[in-house]
């Protein structure tokens, strides 16, 4: 009896199971395409936020499946390109490249049919410091040249990341002839050249400077490096615009819009006079610091070197009969703060000693690492341009600060090479 009931139970349950499975798979067949379509329209929701009058969107490009798109040369920052079906323009989703920030900044950009920005909305902003509503509003109505978008002091990395991402979005449209490119002004072109011509005024390619006052003459604009290593200038001699660079350690040059060096003695003279008059000269402090690193009574004299990096001072040191060279560099460390780093090299270019005014290593970032400053500095002794490979300076977990030390070390070797 019990056995009979047991098998009956099994049979009934099996039948119920099969019936339920049939019912559910039937419903699934009907609903699956609808559910998928619902998911796809939900994907457009952030696009309507930047284009409220849009009717609907067509997917032109998706980073998940770039091969399915007819568009070419789409930068990595662009995660999706959508065209508005009634011809209002394009919506682009962007995600900034890793490296600027720990987590990507995500945003949605609306570009109208004329190639002007209709709206820009940040959808994910993992940084602690806000770039501010004014910065985002400055994109409104701009073309691909973004003439009126400046970076925000204090959040230069984040604002540069956003600006570059927007440029990438435009690049995707322009590369595929969907909108025309905006025309950049000479000022813009020259300022974009500045970090290449004068790496000492930038950190990771992002300019670190503030605009300084100018009087009259050929200097249109002057930009003082935040590490006081020198100036960048926008110049106009009456016929053309040029970029001028003057460094405290002894460099001065003029380049044209293509970045080619220009021989113009009058302009060189003008920027040298301006630089000497307006720079923050810390040579006394640098000499005093170097004096403590060598024997008492060693003779230290300034040695002009033509470099455009983070080196702010180069000195010849005569220690008895020994010829040494001293350098001061101010590279950008954590949070773009300049760190003053000093080196004494022997006549063969090997580091005798190095020291840092203040290692800007933010301690809260070191949960299980304590910086042993003396041995860190000793690690540099004996290194030359050939034997130094960056590993001696870099500490994982303090990448921003130690990358600053790395830059300074390389710059000092470059300055030494320029002397010899």
């Amino acid at each position, binding site marked *: 009896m019990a056995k009979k*009931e047991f098998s*009956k139970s099994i049979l009934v349950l099996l039948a119920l*199971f099969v019936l*339920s499975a049939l019912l559910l798979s039937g419903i699934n067949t009907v609903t699956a395409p609808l559910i998928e379509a619902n998911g796809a329209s939900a994907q457009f929701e952030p696009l309507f936020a930047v284009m409220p009058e849009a009717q609907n969107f067509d997917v032109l490009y998706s980073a998940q499946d770039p091969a399915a798109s007819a568009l070419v040369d789409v930068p990595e920052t662009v995660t999706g390109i959508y065209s508005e079906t009634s011809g209002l323009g394009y919506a682009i989703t962007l995600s900034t490249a890793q490296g600027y920030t720990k987590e990507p900044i995500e945003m949605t950009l609306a570009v109208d049919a004329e190639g002007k920005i209709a709206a820009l909305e940040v959808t994910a902003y993992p940084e602690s410091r806000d770039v501010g509503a004014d910065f985002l509003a400055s994109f409104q109505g701009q073309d691909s040249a973004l003439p009126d978008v400046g970076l925000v002091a204090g959040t230069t990395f984040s604002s540069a990341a956003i600006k570059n991402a927007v440029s990438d979005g435009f690049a995707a449209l322009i590369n595929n002839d969907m909108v025309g490119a905006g025309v950049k002004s000479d000022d813009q072109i020259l300022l974009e050249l500045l970090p290449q011509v004068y790496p000492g005024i930038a950190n990771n390619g992002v300019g670190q400077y503030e605009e300084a006052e100018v009087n009259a003459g050929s200097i249109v604009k002057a930009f003082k490096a935040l590490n006081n290593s020198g100036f960048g200038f926008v110049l106009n001699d009456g016929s053309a615009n040029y970029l001028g660079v003057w460094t405290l350690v002894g460099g001065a040059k003029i380049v044209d819009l293509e970045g080619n060096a220009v021989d113009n003695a009058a302009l060189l003279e003008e920027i040298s006079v301006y630089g000497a008059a307006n720079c923050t000269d810390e040579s006394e402090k640098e000499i005093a610091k170097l004096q403590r690193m060598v024997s008492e009574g060693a003779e230290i004299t300034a040695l002009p070197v033509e470099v455009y990096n983070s080196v702010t001072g180069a000195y010849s040191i005569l220690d008895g009969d020994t010829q040494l060279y001293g350098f001061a560099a101010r590279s950008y460390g954590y949070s773009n703060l300049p760190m003053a780093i000093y080196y004494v090299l022997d006549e063969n270019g090997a580091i005798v000693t190095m020291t840092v005014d203040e290692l800007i290593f933010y301690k809260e970032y070191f949960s299980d690492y304590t910086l042993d400053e003396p041995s860190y500095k000793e690690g540099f002794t004996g290194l030359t341009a050939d034997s130094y490979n960056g590993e001696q300076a870099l500490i994982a977990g303090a990448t921003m600060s130690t990358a600053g030390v790395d830059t300074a070390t390389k710059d000092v070797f470059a300055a030494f090479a320029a002397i010899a």
Partner: protein
Amino acid sequence: MNETKKSPKLLEAIGANPVLVLLLGACPALALTTDVRAALAIGLAALAVMLLSSLVIAALAKLLPQGARLAACVLVTTAFVSAVEMLMNAYLPNTYARMGIYLAVCAVNLLVFGAAENAASAGFGKALLNALVTGLVFTLVVLVVAAVRELFGCGSFAGHEIAFLKAHTVTALAQPTGGFMIFAFVAAVVNKLCPGCCCGIKGTAFAAAGLTDVNCAEKEEV
């Protein structure tokens, strides 16, 4: 029986409802009652699942051996919940999104399950009626709780903001604490209006499962 009451049958049905007496189905009832629309949706979804599963279980009652009843109830209710879930996801995507996980939680909702279990022992018609009444009362209760919580906790009704209420919201009401309080308050009011109604569920599957109200058991003895 108090014959002077206008609709003692209705009140009795409300009073004897397992939502209020045994607090079954309280999980979605509390989670989704800060929005009237979500409350209505979960109420109707539960009603549909209860009706359908009661129908199937009642129809199969004769074929089902005692030992297979529980398993069959689980199977049938889960199947219908899954079906409702898919259909809502396809045809009412916004409502579906608002309900989140709680639609699926319906499958393990004792209220729904109880109705199905009940159907196995009751007759066909009685089972359907029971499912219908339980489902409707559940919907009514969650709607009342949701209306109070949305109006006074969130300052809106069915998603439309009401400026005056928005300025004077009682935040606690929108939180689970507030949900429990309003829920208990509704149960208390119904209990007061219809004392002893709770005994209406005596003898059902709930009682069989040992879920009888203690007070009712005492009353029986007196």
